[in-house]
């Protein structure tokens, strides 16, 4: 009996083997490429909802070019090859006009060849290590010089930090960021022995010895700070351990680049009060735009306790810029939109305007916030004016001569100012 049902079920799923139904072309399709399952689901589902919300809003405003927007959601399931496959599906089967997606660098790297081959358009909303600029990707998250460098400056100037712990999860973003910071600190005359670098695996949960090492390192009489590029999941146990070993933010402040409101909502922040984070956006910033956005979000998720965070703002900015660019270009054709994107301006949620630069990175303000006991950040410092995102770091030997410029005459993602050559393009 049951065997039969199962068999029929399988047969049924087999029957759907005919090519995927392709939608009628009277809608503009927005692809959403965020993991809904697997390890990254924790961060990425929020962004999926954000895009859906933005689409809904845009449709309320009457859509774009007189067409309604239609969101196409797929689940790459935190599986990197699957990201490439799903991108191909979105672009060739669903024929979407734009993709909002990816969180981890590896997923972006795996998507990159496909999206360049099929000349798609993607918005990448997460802070990342830089060292990349593709014709088909717009990077609305922070580059290292929009997060790490200002944070270090703050620690040095405001808190007089002299000793540095660079702690990170062992993958590309922390590695690159720490390399940049190391170079930067040494330029500022910080001695070798005053820098401690430590890498841990993903989801590292036993921080006892590392935290106690940090504690020892910090008890040398000089003011010490931890610059944390620890990735999402590992943060909770890390901060819990800090709290338990009685390391308060006055003794050794920790400035994090991957800890936002959402991560904090996952833990009890009382022992964390005073630790820092550097972002381009905090939910606590008081502006009309932000108020509106937050209320929208809470209404959309039907959950008054949902928080907003920086990647959400990045998505928000990216979406609006794309919408404007499409309006300006009068079409969703990728090349036209790509050109129209450069120079686009949209208001930040934190006040001021974000500008899309020639290198497909944004100019945004940088904020430093202190964690409060209500799981929010208190802005304690911010750059006067905006900082232009830097695709290629000046502090890495490999890339200091490289620039990205997608306007004539250069039109290249990594143009070597020395050799006047353009390399690494997939077309």
């Amino acid at each position, binding site marked *: 009996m049951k065997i039969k049902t199962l068999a029929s079920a399988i047969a049924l799923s087999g029957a759907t083997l005919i090519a995927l139904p392709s939608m009628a072309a009277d809608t503009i399709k927005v692809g959403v490429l965020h993991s*809904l*399952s697997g*390890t990254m*689901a*924790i961060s990425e*589902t*929020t962004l999926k909802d954000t895009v859906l919300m933005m689409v809904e809003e845009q449709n309320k405003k009457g859509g774009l070019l007189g067409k309604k927007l239609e969101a196409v959601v797929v689940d790459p399931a935190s599986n990197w090859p699957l990201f490439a496959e799903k991108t191909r599906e979105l672009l060739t089967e669903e024929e979407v006009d734009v993709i909002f997606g990816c969180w981890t660098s590896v997923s972006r790297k795996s998507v990159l060849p496909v999206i360049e081959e099929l000349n798609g358009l993607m918005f990448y909303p997460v802070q990342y290590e830089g060292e990349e600029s593709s014709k088909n990707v717009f990077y609305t998250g922070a580059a290292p010089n929009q997060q790490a460098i200002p944070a270090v400056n703050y620690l040095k100037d*405001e*808190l007089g930090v002299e000793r540095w712990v660079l702690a990170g999860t*062992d993958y590309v973003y922390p590695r690159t960021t720490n390399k940049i910071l190391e170079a930067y600190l040494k330029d500022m005359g910080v001695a070798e022995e005053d820098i401690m670098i*430590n*890498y*841990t*695996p993903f*989801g*590292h*949960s*036993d921080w*006892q*010895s*590392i935290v*106690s*090492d940090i504690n020892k390192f910090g*008890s*040398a*009489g000089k003011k010490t700070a931890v610059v944390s590029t620890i990735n999402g*999941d590992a943060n*909770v*146990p890390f901060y*819990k*351990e800090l*709290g*338990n*070993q*009685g390391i308060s*933010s*006055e003794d050794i*402040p920790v400035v994090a680049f991957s800890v936002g409101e*959402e*991560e904090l*909502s*996952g*833990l*009890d922040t*009382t*022992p964390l*009060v*005073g630790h*820092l984070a550097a972002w381009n956006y905090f939910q606590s910033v008081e502006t009309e735009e932000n108020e509106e956005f937050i209320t929208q979000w809470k209404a959309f998720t039907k959950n008054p306790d949902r928080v907003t965070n920086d990647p959400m703002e990045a998505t928000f900015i990216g979406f609006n810029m794309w919408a404007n660019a499409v309006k300006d270009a009068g079409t969703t054709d990728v090349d036209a939109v790509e050109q129209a994107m450069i120079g686009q301006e949209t208001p930040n949620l934190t006040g001021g305007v974000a500008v899309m630069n020639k290198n497909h990175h944004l100019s945004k303000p940088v904020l430093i916030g*202190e964690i*409060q*006991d*209500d799981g929010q950040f*208190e802005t*304690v410092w911010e750059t006067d004016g905006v900082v232009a995102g830097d695709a290629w770091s000046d502090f890495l030997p490999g890339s200091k001569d490289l620039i990205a410029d997608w306007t004539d005459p250069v039109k290249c993602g990594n143009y070597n100012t020395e050799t006047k050559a353009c390399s690494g393009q997939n077309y």
Partner: protein
Amino acid sequence: MNAILTLCLLIGALLPFSVAHAATGEATVQSGSPMLLELTKTKLSKMPAVVEKLEAEGGDAYLPLFRTWLAGNLYYVKSNRSLVEKMGSGKQVTFQAMFSGDPMPDLKKKQVKKVKVNNKLRGKLRSVIARIQLTSEDSSVREAAVRELLAKLDKNVIGILEGLHVKEQNLDVKAMIATALSLYAASDKSNSQSVRLSAIEDLSDSLENDVRNGLTKLTNDSNKAVAAAADEALVSINQRVERYALVDQLFFGLSLGSVLLLASIGLAITFGVMGVINMAHGEMIMLGAYTTYVVQLMMPNHIDYSIWVAIPAAFLVSGLMGVLIERLVICRLHGRPLETLLATFGISLILQQLVRTIFSPLNRQVSTPTWMSGSLEINPVLSLTLNRLYILAFALLVFMALVLLLKKSSLGLNVRAVSQNRNMAKAMGVKTEWVDAMTFGLGSGIAGIAGVALSQLTNVGPNLGQSYIIDSFMVVVFGGVGNLMGTLVAAFTLGIANKFLEPTTGAVLAAILVLVFIILFIQKRPKGLFPQKGRAAE
């Protein structure tokens, strides 16, 4: 400029008022003091100056103010700029007037603004409070205050300390003050060499951080003799520090071991006794953790007791789920252990997704009871974190309870009977189905309890289980299937090994080495540390 002007005006306005109330105690006076108004105006960067002025002005009368401020509970009413203290947290926030403490029930959050505080300021406030507290009644407070000051010793502080040193009754505090004095004496170049040397002599048995730093500074002192003395004092201190560091490491190892034990002991039963490869074991742990979360949701005001409710609750939830799984799936797979792996893997996928849909994929906040947070300070260089201590004890407790259960209770008897010879046991009239269900339930239930403990250390999220399942299997196999003692030994061995490797190799390599070791070990002893003997082994 005009700030100063307003200031003068205010002083003028307040003078008669303050005189009038002079008799009724200083509190009201200060509540009107112009410096306090400064608090509501000055920018963060200028604040430290204000703090110093306040200290000069009010001294210990301002202690409560500084404390509230430090805690970030200091607000002021937007309308009249009078300072208020925030009480409570989260939803039920009330305010009361600073100093007088009169409640202000009708004050809304909208109407007040926070007096900002940042790290720099906190540091400042601490040292100020420390200085004030030098004359506090509580000896421990005094000691702490002196310790606070060790880092920032200067002429006038020393002056105060010398005064106190004479008066001080409590020996610990006296010792601490003495340390401070000799530290200063040692570093003060104006002193004669003999004085400085004796001072260093006194310091050489202190483990205080700042003392070490002070001595390190002295090692390159212009005076050779002093430098040498400081150097050897430092050496003797460091030796002791090293010794304590070793103890620390051992504790880390034990604590990691206890976590492994908790995670794997449930598996030792389902896998070891029943031979079921339960891939959903991790999800049982996860369920336990989520139960803790739910319990805390239900009793937000009694977090401290929530754990005691959570433990049985988690046991029940996971246990019942275990029984359910056993009845629905596993009992149909008898004698096919490898198939159980596949089925339970499917189940684990389902459970994960279930949790994702119910609680969202985000991590859930489980707060630590106050009695579990903080650490037990044995001396300045050795302090054991409380939650780890409790979990270590808890793990051993659970283990012993389990051993007793299996040794003494009738259930235990049946379980052992079934595990050794199913058919015989059946023939003897043991209800094997029932025993299986109970065993599996027990194993899962204990996994649930492990979840409660883990919720105090790490993320409570859908992936919680996955990160422990493999380690658990390693522990059970290494210890020898079907042998609880083996599991215990294995868990602690691996934990300690890991922690002693980590400093030299780094976390990742340590993990790899341990795995490789297990693989090789199993080649040597295919049945683990404590192999099962007799027919049951076949």
